[in-house]
């Protein structure tokens, strides 16, 4: 178990985002330290998506700062954050449907091997892209689906492909936006196993509705309600927290 004394990889400091009169992010300060899985939970409309948006650079916060790997990234464009090692997967499956699984990951690899202003050389047989891409696919268990169009993959496989793409740049932090969404029980269990194995190598911020998965995976959990972080702690602490029970889980909604 890593100690919390470790320098955080990602931290937000009093992040605020308003949409009109709605306070979507209300003074949120959270952090993720290397080697941990920090889960972010909360009911629908709690502001999880807005918070993720600010972390990835799709939404600009009104105030507060975001630091990543020792650097202020509050106003950094998305693609630069990715190059610092902050990768994400999408809540709604977001793969390049017209490309094969291998091409999807190859593009993800390509994003990290210098600029792509190369107009003439054929990239289709470029082993410096394909090799790592193939390994990436094997890592998530899609090795035998390399030449299948992404659109033709099953939902679960597309979610795995998502992860492979996010991992391609060897990120230090993975932002996983509901990786288990829409998965069957079996697929979920496989994904949980995979993420747990991955934990030693990279930290994760996990947004997930599946409480089973959250309590199985998370080292720490932060509960977001109406844009505010009402509680943060180990799974056991969160389970015991009265505010959380009342505000979010409801007294009988607790997961065993």
């Amino acid at each position: 178990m890593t100690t919390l004394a470790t320098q955080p990889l990602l931290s937000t400091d009093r992040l605020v985002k308003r949409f009109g009169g709605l306070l979507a992010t209300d003074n949120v300060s959270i952090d993720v330290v290397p080697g941990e899985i920090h889960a972010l939970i909360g009911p629908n409309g709690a502001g999880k998506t807005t918070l993720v948006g600010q972390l990835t650079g799709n939404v600009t916060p009104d105030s507060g700062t975001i630091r990543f790997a020792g650097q202020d990234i509050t106003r950094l464009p998305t693609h630069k954050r990715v190059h610092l090692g902050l990768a994400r997967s999408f809540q709604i499956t977001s793969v390049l449907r017209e490309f094969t699984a291998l091409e999807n990951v190859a593009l993800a690899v390509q994003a990290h091997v210098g600029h792509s202003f190369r107009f003439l050389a054929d990239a289709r047989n470029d082993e410096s892209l394909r090799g790592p891409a193939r390994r990436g696919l094997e890592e998530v268990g899609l090795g035998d689906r390399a030449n299948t169009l992404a659109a033709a993959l099953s939902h679960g496989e597309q979610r795995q492909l998502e992860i492979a793409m996010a991992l391609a740049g060897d990120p230090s932090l993975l932002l996983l936006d509901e990786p288990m969404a829409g998965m069957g029980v079996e697929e979920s269990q496989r994904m949980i196993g995979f993420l747990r194995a991955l934990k030693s190598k990279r930290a994760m911020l996990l947004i997930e509705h599946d409480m089973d998965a959250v309590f199985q995976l998370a080292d720490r959990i932060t509960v977001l309600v109406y844009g505010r972080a009402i509680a943060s702690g180990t799974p056991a602490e969160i389970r015991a927290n009265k505010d959380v029970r009342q505000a979010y889980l409801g007294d009988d909604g607790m997961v065993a």
Partner: protein
Amino acid sequence: MIAALRTPRGLITALVLLVLAVLPLLTQAFDQRYLLSIGTRIVIWSIAAVSLNMILGYGGLVSFGHAVFFGIGGYAVGILSAHGVSSGWIQWPVALIAATLWAALIGALSLRTRGLYFIMITLAFAQLVYYVGGGLEAYGADDGLNISRSRFPGLIDLRDKATFYWLCFAALCGTLWFCSRFANSRFGHVIRGAKSNDLRMTALGFPVFRYRLVAFTLSGTFGGLAGILLANEGAYISPAMMSWVKSGDLIVIVVLGGMGTLFGPLFGTIAFFVLEESLPPLLNLFAKGWGEYWQIVFGPMLILIALYARGGIDSLFGQRS
């Protein structure tokens, strides 16, 4: 190379290219000079269509102002020619640079928008240049201007129809070659990925705007090349060469031929010109005097193409591997 000839697509493509390569000999043999002039325009329009396809077909960017590059390339040649600068060695680089710079400028402004806004802002920028052209009293305003053809002394004489045709054909081959490399390059993969899902590409770490801007600019350069050739073909420039209908025609051609395919724009241009030339006599055959109203048939054809023929002509040749 040889294996490609075994597929219907490869065979047809090779045949079309072969016919185009020897077209001046054919038209001379059969004494059909008029066909050579159509052939020249087909080749020039193909260059423009291939260049539009780079952003429209591969990039998914619906630019509704691509004919502006006909105008920029053409006017650069024409204006220099009107001032007595007739050397192609000066005219052509200036025209290409002008088209490239203009493409970079409007690309930088337009690519900030998306959807209908992008369609309309590209159209508006083309209209802007169109009206400027119409306001240039010194260069014929709306009536346009007769110009002399670019001179390459001691090298080639563009007044010779066959020579000029082969120059255009060489330019088309060069454009196709570049496009074929581009489509499969790292750069091309980024552009095609962004068409599929630009949010995803950004999240992968690609500065999508920058790549699109370069693609837009390159597309403008080749569009400018087509403009240079078009001005030389008719020895004439006018705002009409960049009217918005021409931009629409170019979109029609690319979709008709097959978006995001290498030879689709070429097939599309041929089909477009063949329809334009053959619909009037065909209509006259069925109903005398209706030939001049051929667009009453062509318009609904476009609607049907938009509704039912998504893959274009290219898809008739079978599935792509």
